[in-house]
């Protein structure tokens, strides 16, 4: 009997028992008092909760559809919370890891003005990482745990940062293409359904515009500079164009999370739509400074009023995501070293606070 009972309650996806034989068995069993008791408890707790959840879920979807903003304490499906934590965590990690390729050139910036700009930009990225970690923490996850996942290689971040920065021109091209792509993405995310995420995005978008502009300024300066500088910047565009297109993720049909994220208005535009928008924005900018984008199939399509472009090398894309990009190991190593070397500092500050009881109530 217990087995039957367990079988019934394990069948959690069904609210009601449809199977005739099971119904009959239950009918008989309901005469047994202790079974009756258990069964009603089961109906009350499991089925009752399920129905309640179902009601909440449809109410939730109604709120999303009517454009309401979801706040941390509001009821939300567990899936929504998990998807947000995954996506916002990845986004935060991307900013944090994304500091490294550019920080690589701060000490070699060719003028004081450029040094100041680059330093301010990389520092902004730390700030953006922080806004995003802070927004993710409103979902009941600790930054410490998010960082741990990053350091253990369990969390993803934008694969663009696994490419090396090999010349000063990369500082321009990253600002122009990588931040440019990020802005296309983030402008849409600023309207996402989760309040803390969208507010962080609004702030970030405001600041990112400076990043893109300074990048394009470097690109334009190099493009009209000496022959060596021109060569430097074209080489950089050749290296970063395709990885920048990859930043929008796989094609819609191969993007496992897209449909759900769009239904919940966490994402509002599909990967392919955003990628197209980016290409359409960027081609004229490249032409304006006389740079060639490394895609022979790039051609204006009059009917679509959009640029057709070639297929991304998806093998490379998945390979870099899997950890085999040129700089994956170095990036994680740098983050780990900073974390481990900083442990004694964090502990010291904590010990000081405890000694001086300045955190009495915390």
């Amino acid at each position, binding site marked *: 009997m217990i087995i039957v009972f367990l079988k019934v309650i394990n069948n959690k996806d069904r609210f009601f028992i449809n199977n005739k034989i099971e119904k009959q068995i239950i009918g008989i069993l309901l005469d047994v008092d202790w079974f009756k008791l258990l069964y009603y408890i089961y109906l009350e707790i499991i089925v009752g909760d399920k129905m309640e959840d179902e009601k909440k879920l449809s109410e939730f979807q109604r709120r999303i559809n009517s454009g309401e903003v979801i*706040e941390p*304490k*509001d*009821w939300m499906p567990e899936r929504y919370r998990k998807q947000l934590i995954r996506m916002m965590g990845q986004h935060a990690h991307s900013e944090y890891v994304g500091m490294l390729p550019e920080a690589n050139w701060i000490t070699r910036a060719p003028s004081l003005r450029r040094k100041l700009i680059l330093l*301010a930009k990389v*520092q*902004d990225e730390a*700030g953006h990482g*922080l*806004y995003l970690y*802070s*927004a993710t*923490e409103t979902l009941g996850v*600790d*930054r*410490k745990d998010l960082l*741990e996942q990053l350091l253990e290689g369990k969390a993803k971040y934008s694969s663009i940062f696994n490419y090396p920065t090999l010349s000063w021109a990369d500082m321009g091209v990253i600002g122009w293409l990588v931040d440019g792509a990020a802005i296309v993405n983030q402008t849409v995310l600023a309207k996402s359904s989760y309040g803390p995420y969208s507010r*962080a995005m609004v702030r970030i978008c405001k*600041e990112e515009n400076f990043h893109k502009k300074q990048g394009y300024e470097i690109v334009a300066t190099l493009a009209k500079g000496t022959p060596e500088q021109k060569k430097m910047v074209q080489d950089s565009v050749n290296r970063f164009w395709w990885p920048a297109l990859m930043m929008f993720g796989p094609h819609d049909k191969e993007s496992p999370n897209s449909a759900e994220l769009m239904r919940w208005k966490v994402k509002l535009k599909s990967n392919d739509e955003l990628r197209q928008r980016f290409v359409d924005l960027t081609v004229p900018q490249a032409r304006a400074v006389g740079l060639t984008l490394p895609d022979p199939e790039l051609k204006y399509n009059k009917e679509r009023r959009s640029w057709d472009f070639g297929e991304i090398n998806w093998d490379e894309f998945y390979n870099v995501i899997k950890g085999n990009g040129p700089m994956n190991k170095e990036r994680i190593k740098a983050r780990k070293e900073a974390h481990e070397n900083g*442990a004694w500092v*964090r502990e010291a*500050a*904590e010990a*000081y*606070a405890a000694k*001086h009881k*300045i*955190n009495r*109530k*915390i």
Partner: protein
Amino acid sequence: MSEKNKDSQWPLWEVFVQSEQGGPHIHAGSVHAPDPEMALQNARDVYSRRNEAISLWVVPSVSITATMPSDQGPFFDPASDKIYRHPQFYHVPKGLK
């Protein structure tokens, strides 16, 4: 794993920024910090890199008590029918400022 478990994190502080004299302090986000002084310094660097603040508050996140979404009805609806609290409720002769 024991190494990692040892690594606790600094407490969380909510940051409120006043951006102009006489204006309200508005919630900007949060920072981690070991104590109030460091929380202020971190808040300054994170939320006022572009001169956004003339004054900052930091409050331990755990010290904030907030209403729950389920409170929405009983807490706030009763105020919505007291239209006499709003100036629009009153009729005054036209042209009067």
